[in-house]
């Protein structure tokens, strides 16, 4: 992969840094990759080779590129970190590290670190990011270099994809409007940013499991003219870590000598974080957890998706749902919970809600959550071949060359109309 023509551009009230990306080994279309923000924040952006190499290397490795060559100099600390990150990602699939050489036309040189230091955090308005900001405001003196000064709101998960709808942009604008007020109240600057890194690979599963941590870090590197430290709020807590594109083993690897990256808040469970946010009226008023697509019109939260319902149940047990203006209901109905289509991957978030639900006298909801948890665990055991059927399947594969499975398929075919 070649990344060239790193440049600054301005148009339609937006400032951006962009580069041309050409695949060398994979048969994939060339792209112009960009990071952009409002024109008033143009000075915050720089066409940093570190940003583009961080933003492109994970898809490049996935598609078998043998090298990633970027115009300019790359930080040697980042080069080592990227190798580490690719190793971690590959190890989760049981694969060796992909052999991809990192080349920089001007070699490997540490970029200067911004002085005075300035800290930023991603700021989506969800539980994790509001927790990170709230704890920082409560516990770090404002004159301390770790005090968060910038909240970065990203439109990038859907930006520029063929199926992006105007609703995505409308939702982003609504989020900007809502979070601008909160940022003002907290004395931080809101930095709305957009990137189109997903155009390099629009596979959503890949983005969630491998890519988005690097994409967020890349946005941070594009802002090193303004910031020197970046917190990425954690999704999972340390007691329940799952392979995920943003992870405490991954995120610090995306740092350079100009930008420290911190995976923040993994010491608390989601309910513990929500409890902190629920006690913060200004934050609770702006809480926006929904990333349902297409987004609901004129509302920040749809109230019906898994994430919205999980958050609503959390607020319910904390006694704060009625005060959460961004949720339209003041209670959660058993019907809504029962109607929830649930895939695996969210069990640890729901498990911690069962006991508080019972304590709050909501045995009806607790029973439904337990039913769904049981079903999810059964599914997981089946998928991972941990139940008795799995034992038979493994035995069949190992000793009978799959003949039992073949026989079962033949019987099913014969019985089919």
């Amino acid at each position, binding site marked *: 992969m070649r990344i060239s023509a790193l440049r600054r551009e301005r148009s339609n009230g937006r400032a951006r840094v962009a580069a041309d990306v050409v695949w060398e080994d994979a048969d994939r279309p060339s792209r112009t990759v960009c990071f952009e923000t409002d024109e008033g924040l143009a000075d915050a952006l720089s066409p940093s080779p570190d940003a583009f190499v961080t933003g492109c290397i994970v898809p490049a490795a996935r598609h078998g590129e043998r090298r990633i060559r970027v115009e300019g100099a790359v930080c*040697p*600390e980042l080069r*080592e*970190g990227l*190798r*580490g990150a690719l*190793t*971690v990602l*590959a*190890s989760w699939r049981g694969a*060796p*590290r992909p052999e991809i050489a990192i080349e920089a036309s001007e070699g*490997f040189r*540490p970029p200067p*670190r911004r002085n005075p230091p300035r800290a930023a955090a991603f700021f989506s308005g969800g539980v994790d990011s509001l927790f990170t900001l709230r*704890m920082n405001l409560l*516990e*770090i*003196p404002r004159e*301390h*270099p*770790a005090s968060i000064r910038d909240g970065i709101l990203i439109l990038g998960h859907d930006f520029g994809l063929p199926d992006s709808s105007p609703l995505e942009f409308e939702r982003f604008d609504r989020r900007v409007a809502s979070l601008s007020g909160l940022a003002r109240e907290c004395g931080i600057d809101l930095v709305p940013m957009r990137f189109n890194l997903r155009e390099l690979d629009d596979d959503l599963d890949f983005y969630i499991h491998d890519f988005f941590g690097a994409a967020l870090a890349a946005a941070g590197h594009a802002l090193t003219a303004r910031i020197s430290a970046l917190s990425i709020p954690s999704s999972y*807590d*340390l*007691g*329940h*870590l799952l392979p995920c594109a943003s992870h*405490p*083993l991954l995120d*610090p*690897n995306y740092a350079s*000598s100009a930008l*420290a990256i*911190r995976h923040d808040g*993994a*010491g*608390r469970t989601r309910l513990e974080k929500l409890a902190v946010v629920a006690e913060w009226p200004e934050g609770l008023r702006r809480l926006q957890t929904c990333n349902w697509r297409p987004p609901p019109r004129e509302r920040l939260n749809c109230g019906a998706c898994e994430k919205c319902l999980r958050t609503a149940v959390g607020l319910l047990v904390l006694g704060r749902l009625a005060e959460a203006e961004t949720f339209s209901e003041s209670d959660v109905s058993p019907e809504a919970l029962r109607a929830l289509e649930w895939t695996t991957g969210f069990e640890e978030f729901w498990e911690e809600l069962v006991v508080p639900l019972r304590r709050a006298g909501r045995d009806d909801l607790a029973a439904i959550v337990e039913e769904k948890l049981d079903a999810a665990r059964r599914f997981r055991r089946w998928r991972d071949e941990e139940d008795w059927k799995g034992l038979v399947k493994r035995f069949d594969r190992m000793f009978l060359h799959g003949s039992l499975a073949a026989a079962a398929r033949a019987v099913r075919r014969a019985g089919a109309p």
Partner: protein
Amino acid sequence: MRIDALDCRVTGDGARASARIRWEDAAREPFDLFFEARGAAASSLRADPDAMLLAAAFPAMRHGERRIAVEGTVCPALRDGLRAAATVLKSWYGAPRTLPAIEPAEGFISPAPAPVPRAAAFLSGGMDSLDVFVRNRAYFPPGHPARFEDALHVSGLPWTGPPGSPSSESFVSRGRTAAAALARRLDAPLSLVRTNLGELDRDFLFFRQEWFGSAYAAVAHLFSRRLTEVSYASAQQLGVRLDPLGSHPLLDPLFSTGALRFRHAGADRGRIEKAASLARRPDLLPHLHVCLTTPLDAPGANCGRCEKCLHSQIELLLAGAPANAFPEGCLTAESIRALRADPHTAFFWRPLPERLRRAGRSDLASAIAEKIAQMDRVRAWTRDAGWKGRLRRLDRKHFRSALLDARRLLRPGPAS
């Protein structure tokens, strides 16, 4: 637990920071913890409450203390970090691992970092720490805030026998000599720290599995008036070996405060890569100190025949670097065959046979392959893996070990 009487005073050739540790729930004797520093950074030593907390938190958790009352202030990020680290340890080793409540006398306040950023790293004299230093020197020019401007060498942690014992003294003296020689050549001001922290809990397994990362972080935080970033070299490798250990990429960053960032460095690289980077600094190689054998009567820093000495020599051999820190003639197939098969060390040996064959040393490759097979058998036995393990588990679970008893009756072991 109470941590009080924090004190720091100038001594003849350095400084000494100390604290008194009193147990409140565990029936253990009060303990006077000290850290003595000599060298470039000694004048910056302070009895930092965050450092003392880091030193004692996991022993307090282990012995069931319900709280840790600390004199002074504690950084809220460290409070959360220790709590998060306890969660990690619990996920590895199981309950009960609940961090005692942390009660600083003057509350939770984030300390300000030193006004000028300054980075440092621990320098034990082994390959991991030396590799971290060598690469840092290669990457960061003088004046860059990420360049290591100090080297820290610690003794008194329980890697070997109790303080004052011949084995400990032998290890300390060899380590200090190596670190001093290496720091001189790296042009990094060296500070030597001696502590009795290992005496707070003498269980080496606990130290190794849960505690040593925070113990080294404690030492780093004693210098937070001078340093803003301290790196500890990883003995692990991302994607290859990430065993639950007291120093780990998940744990070490949690031991940071508002004043000092504690980093786990070098986990992206394997031992052979590290040896290759050292091969480019032949001036450093004669001073390498990897050996934990004590006491060592022979001259030099390394015995040459222990497990660590042997794989280090092979790694240097494969990197084309002279193994001139080791006695000559030690690296033989017989020395490798004579090693005890410890499955915990298999990670170091696995990458070697194939490379050794390519390098024309099939004699060593064969001996290592045999040793790895032995290690795997031991590991399978200890983990109850394979059909025998399944049978043992079944026996324990459903027959209360009756099968095992029957086997013992039929085939009694040797009389004691």
